[in-house]
């Protein structure tokens, strides 16, 4: 099939960018969206033009690298999929597709569709860890954890840090990411001693990065490729309130 693309092109961090139109041919419905982008880049290179820069790595939905807003929806808006898992069978011949990078002050565009997500790394570095040495993998059930708690922790730990939550949020808030990175530790015994210091530090870092505030629209939950619930945000809020009382 043949598609009409509108792609954000920006030469580097300091220069202004703009949407540019491209026609891409020979797209198969069996391709993934990233393979369609590869096809476009091959066609551009054959014409001697600069290919479109975009982040990608595992191409199986677990690394969190790919990051495109497709027709107004991060990762294309299909339930539980990243851009690399998005198939071209969802599009038809002649479709127009708008492809943009994540838009947030805290995620500056480095080139074309590539954004700098180091703000997420700094949030994790501020408290998204336990400082006790946990050693090697322990024997199964050596440390009993109720199934319910383990599930809540695992659901939050599914976060791949892609940043779709920020991209989707009307306010470019990073609450879903930050809260998920606290929740997966705060549901385990190892996370308890530093529970309140963790949420305070992570909240402060999140603000310092220039993300917006949460207005409970749940747009993040709707587009999260790992379907993480806004439950983690309520937990994060509750822990921060408790942290004030505990000093």
């Amino acid at each position, binding site marked *: 099939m043949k598609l009409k693309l*509108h792609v*954000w092109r920006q030469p580097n961090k300091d220069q202004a960018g703009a*949407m540019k139109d491209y026609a891409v041919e020979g797209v198969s419905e069996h391709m993934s969206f990233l393979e369609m982008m590869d096809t476009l880049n091959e066609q551009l290179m054959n014409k001697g033009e600069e290919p479109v820069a975009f982040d990608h790595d595992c191409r199986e939905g677990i690394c969190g690298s790919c990051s495109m807003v497709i*027709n*107004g*929806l*991060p990762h294309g*808006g299909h339930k539980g999929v990243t851009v690399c898992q998005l198939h071209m069978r969802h599009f038809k011949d002649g479709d127009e597709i*708008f492809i*943009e990078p994540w*838009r*947030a*002050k*805290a995620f500056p*565009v480095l080139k074309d569709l590539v954004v700098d997500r180091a703000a997420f790394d700094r949030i994790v570095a501020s*408290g998204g*860890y*336990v*400082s*006790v*040495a946990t050693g090697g993998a322990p024997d199964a059930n050596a440390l009993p954890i109720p199934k319910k708690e383990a599930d809540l922790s695992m659901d939050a730990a599914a976060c791949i840090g892609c940043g779709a939550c920020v991209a*989707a*949020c*009307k*306010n*470019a*808030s990073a*609450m879903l990411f930050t809260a998920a990175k606290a929740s997966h530790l705060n549901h385990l015994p190892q996370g308890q001693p*530093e529970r309140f*210091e*963790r949420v*305070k*530090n992570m909240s*402060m870092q*999140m*603000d310092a990065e*220039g993300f*917006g*505030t*949460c*207005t*409970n*629209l*749940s*747009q993040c939950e*709707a*587009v999260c490729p790992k379907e993480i619930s*806004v*439950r983690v*945000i*309520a*937990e*994060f*809020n*509750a*822990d*921060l*309130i408790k942290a*004030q009382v505990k*000093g």
Partner: protein
Amino acid sequence: MADAMELKRDTAGESLLGSLTRFFMSAVGSKVVMAATGLGLFLFVVGHLAGNLLAYVGRDAFNAYAIALKSNAILLWGARSALLIGFPLHILTAIRTVQLNRAARPVPYAFDNKSPARTAAKTMMLSGLVVMFYFLYHLAHFTWRITGPQPVTLLPDGNFDAYSMLVMGFQQPLISLIYIGAQVLLAAHLSHGVYSMFQHLGFWGTKWTPFLKKTALVAGYGLCAAFASIPLAVLLGIIKP
């Protein structure tokens, strides 16, 4: 080594006041302020409605309530403090968070953001702004008595005839329309706010949260339908002069 890795807060050792100020200025803390003041204002609205519905009982019941409210210092200042503290904090925090949110996305999307969300939830600032102007008009009408038709005579005991004020006001279709219109926007505001405040305050449950979302819809639109029924009842002649 282990000591160097220990999770320590930069602000450890700051005063209680300093730490609370820092919290209430943070992204999460400002939402706690929004939720707490929102809860206060919501409770005020519920109490206000209970009083208004006495208009259906009759002139004497409604006027007795109006006089009781004015003469009972605890009731009056309880309601007034909900407004005097709640409103400015709610509005100032809203302005501040909207500024933060706008600054957080300096370059807009070329294609509209299609991530799903309820329209009422996305337009809280707009509905809130309209409700604020309506609130000022409402004060001018019923509290300061500088707009709308006002009864010329006082009650025999020297008090204002609140019942006549209400009926005379709502007999004007334009005034009724303003009141009913504002109720629709207040309903939209509450239909998100009543759920959202629980989320901000950290309440979440697999059964509790969907229930709260429905409750917010029912409470928001239900309360405002009850409010709006009064001007309608006056126009239809159910509440008589």
